[in-house]
Each structure stands twice: as C-alpha cells, then as structure tokens.
C-alpha cells in the first residue's frame, strides 16, 4: 500500500462533518467516493464490510470512519479519521447550545430544520443505494435487502437479530 495521505483525509472529513446535517449516514456516499474512488485506500467490498463491522459495535455509528482509519494506517489513521468528528461538535454545537439557553424560540432555526429535512433524507437514500451496490452481487442479495426492509417496517425487532440472521445466511451460502 502506498503511504496514506492522512492530512488530506483529515481535511476532507473535517469539511464533510460540517455539512453532515442529519448524522453520519448523510456523508457516507462522499466518504465512500473519497476513500474508494479518489484515494483507492480500500476496495468497495472492504468499505461495505468495515462499515457493517462498525454497525455491530457499541457506540456511535459514525465510528466506521475510525475503523477504516485503523485498517489503512493504524493509530495515526484512527486519529486522522476520528478527530474531525469532534470539531463541529466542540465548536458549533457548544456555540448553539449556549445560544439556545438565551433564545429558545428563534424562527430561523425552524426554517433551517424544515428546509434541510428533505435534503437529509435524499442524502441518506443515496447512502443506502451505494451500500447496496457495494455488496449485492445478484438477485438473492437484493431479495434479502428487500426482506430486511419489509421486516423492519412491519416488526419492531432488535436490528442486531437481523444482522445475526444475515451472518448465518452468509455462512450457509444463501447469499
């Protein structure tokens, strides 16, 4: 593997987190584009696997970037991918948290929330389709994705059971 440009990763993720309104799922397409297509740090398949591995761990879902960082560059990689996560939280969030205690009912906040909600949803939909394309190679994969969606929409099962079911289906060669 070539030497990894950790400074570039750090800056790219830092910019991404500042536009990640609606949480980590919204920036997944761009993280994938950057680490797979632009930098070639991991393959598409490795990206999907590392993302999934991070989902079964406790803690924030955003930690998949930490796992990718560890995979490509060890501890410096962990720092380069995890620290950007903290920057918006420790600047903007503190500022807004502080203002919030003074001006609880600002109309600008409401307009921003309403205006940005559809964009957030469109971006998360993009994340879901990119993950699907990264792992589903044939109709059985797509069928299982569809099955998962159906179960989640109809039942209130713990998602961990579904992931465990997916692991078993994989081991027994069903997908």
């Amino acid at each position, binding site marked *: 593997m070539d030497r990894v440009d950790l400074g570039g990763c750090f800056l790219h993720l830092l910019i991404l987190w500042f536009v990640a309104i609606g949480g980590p799922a919204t920036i997944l397409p761009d993280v994938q584009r950057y680490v797979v297509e632009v930098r070639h740090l991991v393959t598409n398949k490795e990206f999907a696997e590392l993302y999934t591995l991070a989902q079964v761990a406790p*803690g924030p879902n955003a930690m998949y970037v930490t796992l990718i960082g560890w995979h490509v560059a060890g501890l410096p990689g*962990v720092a380069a991918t995890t620290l950007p996560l903290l920057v918006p939280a420790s600047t903007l969030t503190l500022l807004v948290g502080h203002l919030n205690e003074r001006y609880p009912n600002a109309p600008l906040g409401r307009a921003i929330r309403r205006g940005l909600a559809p964009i957030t949803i469109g971006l998360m939909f993009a994340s879901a389709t990119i993950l699907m394309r990264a792992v589903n190679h044939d109709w059985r994969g797509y069928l299982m994705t569809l099955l998962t969606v159906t179960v989640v929409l109809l039942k209130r099962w713990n998602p961990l059971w579904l*992931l465990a079911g997916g692991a078993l289906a994989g081991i027994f060669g069903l997908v």
Partner: protein
Amino acid sequence: MEQTELSRPRNSALALFLTFSRITLSGFGGLTFWTRYVLVERERWLTQREFLDLLVLAQLLPGPNALNLTVMVGYRFGRWTGAAAAVAGFLTCPCLVVIGLGVLYEHYGALPQFQRALTGMSIVAAGLLLSFVIKLATVLPRRLLPWLFGALAFVGVGVLRWPLPWVVAALAPWAVAIAWKEQS
C-alpha cells in the same frame, strides 16, 4: 433559565464521563434512544421536555446527532469541563472496541466463513439503512418542493457522484429560503 440552573445540581466531570460511557456501551446503533433512557428515566438529570429540546438541536447541527447531544448535556451540567468529560466518556470505549474489531478483521478477514458472514451482514445493513430512510421520509409534507429537493440531493450525490459539500452548498440556501418564506 437562571432558575433552572440554580436548582440543578452540578454533576461532576467523573459522573458525566461514567454516565456517557454507560450510554455508549449499551447503545447498539440507536444511541439517542439510550441517551434518553439513561438521562431521563434512570438518572433523572433532564425532564422529557428538556431532553426533546436538546435532541431537536442536536439533529439540526452537523455531525453525529448523539455526539452533539452529548456535548450539549455535558455543557449544561458542567460547562467546558463537563462537555469534555461527557465526550471522552462517549468515545473512549467505542474507539477501543473498534480497534479490536479492526485487529480481528486483519487476522480473520480473509477466512471464507468470516467473509460470507460479513457479506450477509452487509446486505442486512443496507436494508436497515434503507428502511430507516423510508420511515423518516413519511414525515415529509406531501408537496412537490420538499420531494424535489430530496430527489436532487439523491441524484447529485448518489447517481452523479458529485462531491457532497458542493451539492449541499448548492441546494441548502434555496431550501432554507423557501421554508422561511412559507413560514412568514
């Protein structure tokens, strides 16, 4: 505001660190759920209403929602040190667990069983994300403009693969301006 602050006991940095460590370790995936459970029901640091106010803001701000929530709760109870202690508690253990998983992946990632299990789980993970988006989309108003903005964001980032910051910078000002006009 001052009244609530006076009546509120200040929690020590250690208490914030430990409480958020507990939240993060019990929360698989839905961390905001566990934050509410621990802070509102078990510890009674916040009322239901106070929690909701902070959650709305946390979702509005960029970055992981649960992390923003952690910062604001930490700040409310212990100012700067409180926020730092809460975030440290929130991230330390998951960081270690993730590194452990990374080590496992390097050693066993090439095993066929491990590979196949991961493939199956990845497929389910994609389905989970998709269903989460569908659930969220049901709260959007049934009008053309919001769905148009959603579709443009999806096409720009998911189909054309343009860089996300540009897409957001191009769409967000219009979306917010329109929402602002509709409101007044």
